């Protein structure tokens, strides 16, 4: 627990974890300044843009990565529900800071509250044997109601700060929140890298996965916890209201044009990054909200993907391979 001379993140015990992240942020900022010098791009001259771009790039990887598993389980809306509980977490953070005069990052409390809500949704669904949209809607509105209530109790100057959480903001990505996002990013990528086989099996065929000895409920819990992390991480730029779009839209686009699951993950990440990078550029030059621009671009890319996908099926219809015979029995003619 060595306390640094300047305490960047007020949660003191976490300093050893965050130290390398701040170091990386400094390194990244240096790199961005170098790029700015080479290209002469005006938007790369500001420190907050360096962080915003890094956060955007991370969102572009982790949101579609987790979203791919969610969308194919028909759980697209869970992201929305968790984002709204994340808002409650932000409100809790602001409230606690105001009452006890602390300096905890609201994103930290948002992660915690959102993860608790995620487990809650999962446990409800385990008890009732189904993910139902009613319980999801209840959790969503409870989260948002709690958030608005807490903020209104605090009143005063806080209302100004809330916009940043609701709609996201490039300019307010602080060192602290960027560091939190990097930490979430590392955890999410690590967990998915380790359990990708199991997550895929459970996503594709829950019963067969259970028969093969996987604990389906545990992997479901992991999945919703990861979703909570992604949503809160992405909230900084995307805002509460639009964050779920990054989980869904690039994935929907990718499933139009991909054949395999691995390919669809890669394509969805490429599409998301495209939307994020273009979106940050456009929103900077047009002085528009980044979250909105990114989602609009993502939807435009989705439409293009749908058209491409249709063209793909039209042109691939001709080459239907012959079905092979069953090797163990007698030869069977192709039944196409």
């Amino acid at each position, binding site marked *: 627990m060595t306390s640094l001379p300047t305490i960047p993140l007020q949660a003191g015990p976490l300093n050893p974890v965050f130290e390398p992240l701040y170091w990386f942020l400094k390194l990244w900022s240096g790199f961005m300044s170098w790029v700015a010098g080479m290209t002469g791009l005006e938007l790369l001259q500001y420190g907050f843009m360096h962080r915003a771009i890094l956060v955007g790039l991370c969102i572009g990887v982790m949101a579609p990565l987790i979203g791919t598993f969610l969308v194919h389980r028909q759980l697209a809306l869970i992201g929305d529900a968790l984002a709204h509980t994340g808002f409650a977490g932000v409100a809790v953070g602001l409230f606690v800071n105001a009452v006890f005069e602390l300096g905890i990052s609201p994103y930290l409390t948002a992660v915690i509250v959102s993860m608790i809500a995620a487990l809650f949704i999962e446990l409800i669904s385990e008890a009732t044997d189904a993910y139902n949209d009613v319980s999801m809607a209840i959790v969503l509105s409870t989260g948002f109601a709690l958030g608005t209530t807490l903020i209104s109790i605090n009143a005063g100057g806080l209302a100004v700060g809330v916009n940043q959480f609701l709609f996201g903001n490039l300019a307010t990505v602080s060192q602290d929140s960027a560091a939190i996002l990097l930490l979430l990013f590392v955890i999410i990528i690590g967990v998915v890298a380790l359990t990708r086989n199991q997550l895929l099996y459970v996503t594709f*065929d829950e019963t067969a996965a*259970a028969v093969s*000895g996987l604990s389906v409920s545990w992997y479901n819990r992991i999945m919703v916890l990861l979703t909570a992390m992604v949503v809160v991480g992405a909230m900084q730029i995307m805002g509460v209201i639009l964050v779920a779009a990054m989980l869904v839209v690039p994935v929907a686009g990718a499933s139009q044009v991909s054949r395999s*699951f691995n390919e669809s993950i890669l394509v969805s990440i490429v599409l998301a990054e495209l939307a994020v990078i273009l979106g940050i550029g456009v929103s900077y030059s047009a002085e528009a909200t980044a979250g909105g621009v990114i989602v609009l671009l993502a939807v435009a890319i989705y439409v293009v993907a749908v058209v491409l996908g249709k063209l793909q099926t039209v042109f691939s219809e001709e080459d239907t*391979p012959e*079905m*092979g015979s*069953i090797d*163990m029995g007698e030869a069977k003619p192709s*039944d196409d």
Partner: protein
Amino acid sequence: MSTQNPASTTSSGTGSSTESIIDLSGVDFGYTSTPVVEDISLRVTPGEYAAVVGPNGSGKSTLMQLMLGLLRPDEGVARLFGEPSHQFDDGERIGYVAQHASASKAMPITVREVVKMGRYPHVGFGRLSSEDWDIVDRALDIVGMTSFASRRVTQLSGGQRQRAFIARALASEADLLVLDEPTVGVDIESVEAFYDLLDALNQDGITVLLIEHDLGAVTEHADRVICLNREIYFDGPAGEFVESDALARAFGTTANLLGGSR
């Protein structure tokens, strides 16, 4: 890998349960207080080709879930490969094929990726070795789907899709193949080929347990028929089942049962 069950080589006490792949004795189960299956006792031994038939709502799928340990019996004992079913975690020994033909999941996934899942219980958190990939390719070859390996599963016909799922079960090198109404939504021609494949696999030593509503297919292909409607109405050779009146009794009472419970 090996089809030897370590439990079957150790002769312990009675030795009756260790020889069976599936062993149910006096099993009752109900989702509510109304029993869905009642007093079920049956054993499936290695190499058998058994079919569970019964009208809709007769508890066929529930019985299968009890056998596989997905549900726990309210009364009685369910054993799988000699272990209590719900504790059984040697998942690679069981291949499971459900009614995928009609399920239109829009997920982008190729046939090879589906078959690859059969190796997941073997590799755990690791990656597939080249040996694992060989097994995947062999399974694809056995069901005649090699040329479809990189196709999206959603683009396949119902029959082709079911072959892919059989291949997944083969890739897991399962001793027991459990199929839950596998031919729903599959065209007639493919159904024939599908049953020929099951016959061939059974002759190769794989135990086949089929849950089926198509009585014609069952009596033609399976060796043993278990006729179920809440309780067992018939359990014996397929030939005797055709001559018995079990069918009429099991299906005849359905009308009353359905009228009462649904």
